[in-house]
């Protein structure tokens, strides 16, 4: 079992409030990502779950047991850190053995020299060796067991750190940006490996990241945190397609979502950039914001489609996609449109007609709440 629930967690460092009345239920066996910009309190939240940091108020409940006053080591959680935090003076094997020895050996058995003479130790040592070997097989690090962390590459250290977390077979894994020290190619590779690992272990994963791509690709559910508040908790596709507020919409998705000022008439119809949305909204406000993702804007030559004109000012060619940064008119900020390379390159300075896909336009209050 690995259900974790957080109830009204508050945490402040001095006068800065880091977490505000945060509640969260994590189901057994799910891959939950805590995602948010730096400084939003996600790492602090993870440390509170781990027991490395004490909340000012609120409860942490693991498997229906309140663990507020339980020490980190007794919560049966394992953590993977951004800098891996392997013991630099020990070989990978010893690194993997350490948590098991601390859990299984008695005080006398842990003593150097004297410990060797305690008869029960031999049996325990054997089971530890087996576990270490099994884990190293799973992670394909068997041949690295006798090396020290300093002799490993980033990816290998990452695996060793995962191994040290896995050997104990904990209730849940806590991961604090474990991939952010890896290079781009390896990061993408490790994303799929972590997902596979999660599928085979079927243990609860709580994964902290500031990279929304990691959150979108790996998680069962993702929790978007901004400024110490949980803004939305849902599956990645729901969060992406149906964000609850403008802040979530702007944080999730790369490049960032485009926003336009819009006017709402008394009958609920919405108009922005001279284009009228087909859908009608039920709201009392007169001004609002329309948000459209870059892939839902289309560069069109069809003069029948409702569209607005803009000038291309910068072009980002990613191979599979091209993102055009366009300037609508001097006063407005730039917006980003996705184009396909098949349609041919459009050079800087050219004027294009841009047409939004009506179904995908989202409406927000000027304060940021979603209007549905």
């Amino acid at each position, binding site marked *: 079992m690995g259900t974790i629930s957080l109830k009204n967690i508050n945490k402040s460092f001095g006068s800065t409030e880091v977490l505000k009345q945060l509640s969260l239920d994590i189901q057994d066996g799910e891959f939950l990502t805590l995602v948010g910009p730096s400084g939003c309190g996600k790492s602090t939240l993870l440390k509170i779950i781990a027991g490395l940091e004490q909340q000012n108020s609120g409860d942490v409940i693991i498997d229906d047991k309140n663990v507020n006053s339980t020490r980190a*080591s007794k919560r049966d959680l394992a953590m993977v*850190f951004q800098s891996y935090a392997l013991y*630099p003076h020990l070989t990978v094997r010893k690194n993997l053995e350490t948590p098991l020895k*601390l859990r299984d050996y008695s005080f006398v058995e842990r003593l150097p020299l004297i410990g060797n003479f305690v008869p029960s130790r031999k049996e325990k040592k054997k089971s530890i060796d087996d576990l270490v070997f099994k884990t190293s097989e799973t992670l394909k690090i068997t041949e690295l067991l006798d090396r020290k962390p300093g*002799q490993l590459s980033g990816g290998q250290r990452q695996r060793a750190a995962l191994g040290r977390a896995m050997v104990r077979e904990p209730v849940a894994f806590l991961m604090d940006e474990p991939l952010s020290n890896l290079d781009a190619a390896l990061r993408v590779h490790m994303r799929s490996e972590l997902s596979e690992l999660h599928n085979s272990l079927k243990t609860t994963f709580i994964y902290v990241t500031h990279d929304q791509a990691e959150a979108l690709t790996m998680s069962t559910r993702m929790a978007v945190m901004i400024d110490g508040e949980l803004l939305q908790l849902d599956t990645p596709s729901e969060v992406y397609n149906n964000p609850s507020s403008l802040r979530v919409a702007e944080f999730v998705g790369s490049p960032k979502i485009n926003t336009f000022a819009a006017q709402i008439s008394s009958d609920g119809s919405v108009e922005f950039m001279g284009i009228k949305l087909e859908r009608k909204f039920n709201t009392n406000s007169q001004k609002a914001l329309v948000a459209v993702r870059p892939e839902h804007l289309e560069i069109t030559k069809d003069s029948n489609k409702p569209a607005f004109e803009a000038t291309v000012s910068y072009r980002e060619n990613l191979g599979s996609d091209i993102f055009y940064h366009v300037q609508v008119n001097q006063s407005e900020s730039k917006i980003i449109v996705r184009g396909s390379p098949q349609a041919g390159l459009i050079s800087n300075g050219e004027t294009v007609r841009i047409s939004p896909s009506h179904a995908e336009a989202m409406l927000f209050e000027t304060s940021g709440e979603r209007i549905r």
Partner: protein
Amino acid sequence: MLARHYIGESWKHGLLIIGALIVLIPFYMMVSMSLKSQQEIQSISGGLVGAQEIQTFPVCTKHGYTEEVCTMRPYKYNFWFAFKKAPIPRYLMNGLIVTVSIFLIQVLIALPCSYALAKLRFKGREFVFSMVLFCLLIPVHAIALPLYVMLAKAGLVDTYAALIIPWTISVFGIFLMRQFFMTVPDELIDAARMDGMGEYSIVWKVMLPVAIPALLAFAIFSVVAHWNDYFWPRIVITGNRDLFTPPLGIREFRGGIDSDEFGPMMASIVTVTIPLIVAFIVAQKRFVEGITMTGMK
């Protein structure tokens, strides 16, 4: 342009060479005098090693040895007589016992203290640390008298304890290790806590191995200071020759009827200096190794 560049460089080197000579010449004199005969020393002749003629040494026969025993080459005589005149091995042993005990106890105390000051959050931490800094400013000589009175009242004068106890708490050690521990990532400590280590286990099983390079630097300071210390042993060791440390032992060669015999005196000094030089060379190599083995980014 190029020539001027060389001139600019050369005066720097010249200055450094003069500095090096000022430091090295006494060592040269010491080694040279420990090898030469009394006549050569007094007439400042014979270069580094002298002529090494076999001769009979009058001071030796004055001490009651036969003429046959006292006839040998000067270098051999100097060292042989130094060891005959004073129990140098005993002094070296005392030096070893005192410096090693001091260092080990200093580490035993400084490591947990500096760990707490660097990594644990508690009320008054900054105040305690500022007191540590304050203690760095107190010169030993200022508190020597009260310390001596305390040890005398406790009946510890003329014991190893008197040589060791006053130095066991090294504020410099606490300060140095605290600064080093500040650079150790918190994540390493968090990882150890998740693995189930208590705070003392973290100090001895994680922080100590990581801190080896810093500890070696501290060891050099501590061992050199207490091996060479003359002031404190001179105060607390009043009569018992069995407790003399090497610097006190060298004093034996001063004064007396044969006070002008420099050969054996310099030989004893060479003997006392060699362990430090060897230790330094060994530590220097480990020093570099220590830094590379940490493997932290």
